[in-house]
């Protein structure tokens, strides 16, 4: 019943394998069938910088690949979610779609406009539901205070997510975290971007955004940050590590939501959730839960 084409994107399958591992485990647990499509390519998000047309074409190619198999797409990366959702919106316009299909014909593909894209958190929220998750929890996480971070493209551009949630006061990740028993904290810089997309052109800029958010957690007794995007993950984890080489003040463990959920469902932290792959050791968290 719940069957999706899994869209891995660029970064998850190469640099943040723990996200993929945990996501596959969680989906399997809840009976969400994931289909791997080998022909999927980059969502086109970054190519927009040089050519809006190229970006849209790449997104359309991916959408068409899912459509030919009659599948909707499940994404792990927030940026892919935003890029593909925005493309769907653009391709609702028939003239644009015709223009794109003209080019796709060369590779024998066509996008008819029938695909939906959902981020894994949204699938868990809408298809499985917070109540069902609550009932399945097997491990007490109530001692954990975690800071949710949504990731910009999870809900933006706003117009592409109108029927789901508005970006200025988001609640879904808070609710998903609460469902596991952990306590999501409120904090001032909730809406702040991780800076990941500015990282390739300016490392310093991106670092200062990372620090702004991490600074906000000082004195708030936060055990971990919970994310739903691997680009955000790399920024707050790997780049945090790099910043700490100089300042050594944070050492804040970072979890991806499927990992937190997996912990609550009693999954094996190393084998099933990939916690061994973390740059910042999650041992502190594991020690806190029973």
């Amino acid at each position, binding site marked *: 019943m719940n069957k999706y084409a899994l869209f891995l*994107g*660029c*970064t998850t*399958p*190469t*640099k943040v*394998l723990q996200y*993929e*591992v945990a996501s*596959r485990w969680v989906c399997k647990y809840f009976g969400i069938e994931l289909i*791997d499509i*080998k*022909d*999927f*390519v*980059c969502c086109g*998000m*970054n*190519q*927009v*910088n*040089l*050519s*809006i*047309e*190229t970006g849209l*074409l*790449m997104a359309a*190619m991916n959408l068409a690949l899912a459509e030919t198999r009659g599948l909707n797409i499940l994404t792990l990366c927030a*940026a892919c979610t*935003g890029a593909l959702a925005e493309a769907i919106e653009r391709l609702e316009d028939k003239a644009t779609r015709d223009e794109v299909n003209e*080019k*796709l014909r*060369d*590779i024998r*593909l066509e996008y008819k406009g029938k695909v939906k894209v959902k981020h894994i958190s949204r699938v868990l929220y809408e298809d499985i539901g917070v109540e069902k998750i609550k009932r399945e929890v097997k491990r007490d996480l109530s001692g954990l205070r975690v800071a949710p971070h949504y990731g*910009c*493209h999870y809900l*933006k*551009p*706003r117009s592409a997510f109108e029927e789901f949630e508005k*970006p*200025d006061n988001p609640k879904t990740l808070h609710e998903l975290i609460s469902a596991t028993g952990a306590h999501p904290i409120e904090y001032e810089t909730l*809406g*702040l*971007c*991780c*800076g*990941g*997309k*500015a990282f*390739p*052109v*300016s490392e310093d*800029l*991106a670092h*200062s*955004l990372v620090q*702004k958010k991490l600074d906000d957690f000082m004195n708030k007794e936060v055990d971990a940050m919970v994310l739903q995007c691997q680009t955000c993950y790399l920024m707050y984890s790997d780049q945090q590590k790099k910043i700490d080489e100089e300042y050594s003040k944070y050492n804040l463990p970072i979890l991806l939501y499927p990992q937190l959920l997996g912990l609550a469902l009693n999954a094996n932290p190393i084998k099933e959730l*990939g916690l061994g792959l973390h740059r910042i050791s999650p041992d502190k968290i594991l020690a806190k839960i029973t």
Partner: protein
Amino acid sequence: MNKIKKILELKNPVSISELDPNFKSEVIAHPDARGLAACFSCGTCSAGCPIHEVFSEYSPKKLAKMVRLGMRKQVLSSPYIWYCATCHNCEQRCPQNVSFFNVLNVLKNMAAKEGYAPSAWVEQTKQVVKTGIVFPTEENWIKKREELSLPSLKEDHPKLKKIIELTGVNKIKPRVDKE
């Protein structure tokens, strides 16, 4: 006189001869940037921009105004237009529905055509043509995926190469900065 100049870096006002009256219409001719003409410089975009917060030289409001005034060279050659973190805050709160995120992409596309693209993005596109993703294939993650019994990734994507070549984006040359 020379001395004063050194200390103060004396500046001249922007002269009308430096303004390109066609620049604005060129930009808003692109459907993605059409809304820019309605901008009334309220500054909501800049106030909510995370990059502007830490680096004031990057300012959506200022760039929007520079485009409207016709400051073609200054806008397109600016290294700062590439600093956007793509968070969409500017557009989602704009009271005039100017999608600055898209306006900026239009500007970046124009700048890229004129030879101002940062090498990072040019390299990424080259990479995408080769592997389908923005990274080159690396032994270590291929091995890791096997260890975790994750499905292998396809390493070449001729179809993608074909459509990318159709758009000509692979021909864009990176910016060369004179020192």
